[in-house]
């Protein structure tokens, strides 16, 4: 019997589609959502891990990374190759103005005003947490379809924040780091985020959490970026953020020199949400 090749092609495509679908369903960050709270998310395939520098390094030696290398070539924080971190002579001479004893001490010091950013464990997304005088704002996004904003109050160095669609974030920031877990869009992540310090190259926006809202083609959008200490960034855009389940996509590259981003011909002006200064609270 003659083989019906077009039908074979169709069925091959269908089989490939089912295979990719099953692979997506079984991928670590998907299955992690079903696991119990506090579980460590295995590496997500969403992008390659760029491990954040340890807090002790960040606070002790003021490493002064050059973010331009990473951000000029990569719109998200997740270049497959690790961002080049180059100590510059100019900032090496700068004094380490970071607060002492917040780096890796294990005391139960609770900073009243602080900002934390990091990639989640496994590198599948980034998270930012800002605390300012008893109030807290947090954001997680993966530069794709996962994004969630959280708001709530702080008490005794712990946060239990909630967001839309069952998004939850619980964190303990008493040890100089913000450690905890979160759920966003049904995906669970755990994280251990070092505190953000104010040492940045001149003319650059500091690491931290940025947001911008605008109207593009008659649709209101809300963009969020997490700029990591190495200058890399992860950003997502929510469309119609007031709706129950806002569609989410990758955000355009945030220009760290100007604090703006171009999106479909509209200039988004990003503002820093800072627990240190209270801006954005």
């Amino acid at each position: 019997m003659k083989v019906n090749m077009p039908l074979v092609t169709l069925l091959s495509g269908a089989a490939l589609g089912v295979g990719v679908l099953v692979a997506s369903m079984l991928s670590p960050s998907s299955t992690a959502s079903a696991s119990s709270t506090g579980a460590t998310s295995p590496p997500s395939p969403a992008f390659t891990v760029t491990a954040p520098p340890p807090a002790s390094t960040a606070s002790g030696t003021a490493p002064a990374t050059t973010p331009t290398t990473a951000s000029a070539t990569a719109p998200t924080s997740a270049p497959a190759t690790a961002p080049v971190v180059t100590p510059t002579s100019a900032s090496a001479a700068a004094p380490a103005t970071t607060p002492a004893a917040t780096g890796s001490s294990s005391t139960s010091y609770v900073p009243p005003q602080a900002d934390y950013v990091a990639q989640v464990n496994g590198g599948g997304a980034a998270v930012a947490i800002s605390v300012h005088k008893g109030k807290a704002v947090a954001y997680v996004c993966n530069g794709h379809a996962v994004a969630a904003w959280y708001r709530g109050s702080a008490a005794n160095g712990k946060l239990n924040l909630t967001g839309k669609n069952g998004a939850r974030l619980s964190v303990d920031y008493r040890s100089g780091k913000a450690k905890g877990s979160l759920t966003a869009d049904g995906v669970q992540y755990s994280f251990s985020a070092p505190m953000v310090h104010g040492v940045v190259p001149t003319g650059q926006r500091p690491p931290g959490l940025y947001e911008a809202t605008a109207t593009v083609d008659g649709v209101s959008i809300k963009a969020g970026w997490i700029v990591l200490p190495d200058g890399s960034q992860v950003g997502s855009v929510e469309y119609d953020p007031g709706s129950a389940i806002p569609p989410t996509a990758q955000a355009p590259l945030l220009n760290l020199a100007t604090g703006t981003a171009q999106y479909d011909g509209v200039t988004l002006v990003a503002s820093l949400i800072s627990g240190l200064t209270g801006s954005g609270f």
Partner: protein
Amino acid sequence: MTAQPDVSSPAPDRYSLGIGKLVVPSLIGGLVALTLGVYGRLHHPTGVVVNIAGFTSAGYVKSWLATIATFFAIVQVTSALVMYGKIPRVTAPSWIGRLHQWSGRIAFLAAVPVAIDCLYGLGFQTYSTRVLIHSILGCAFFGFFTIKMLILPKRGLPNWTLPLAGAVVFTVLVGIWFTSAFWFFSTFGLHR
């Protein structure tokens, strides 16, 4: 056993125009498109994507796969024009049929993972004109492609059916590319 009409014998008069042979493939193709659309609309998008090392983000993987599919779709149309003798002073080489078949297979197989990620990770969305057009065309593409594949081995169809089906599939794919990869590259930059 009771007497039955001889169902195995064809009824050539009824299908003399050949258009009747398009009914079942069209229904199946419509069902494919509808299934994808309904799934994309009902399934809650997870954002979970399978990325490939060496690319900045899943958006780039998808954009390049879509570009590969579109490139081979152009090979499709070109080789079809050669086969049909529509390009002056070019006689079809012996391998043109094989080129047409394999370029089509590659284009289709490159498009499938992109579509799965769109449906599973992002869903059928309507928040802007570009996204709405892309969602509709994306679902329609696999419907039209199914129709084309199902009518391909059939004999006795009107001459215009295959060229029309191929043209529709190609046009829809190019529309998909312009509303996704072209937009993505022009928004986020042309690189990996």
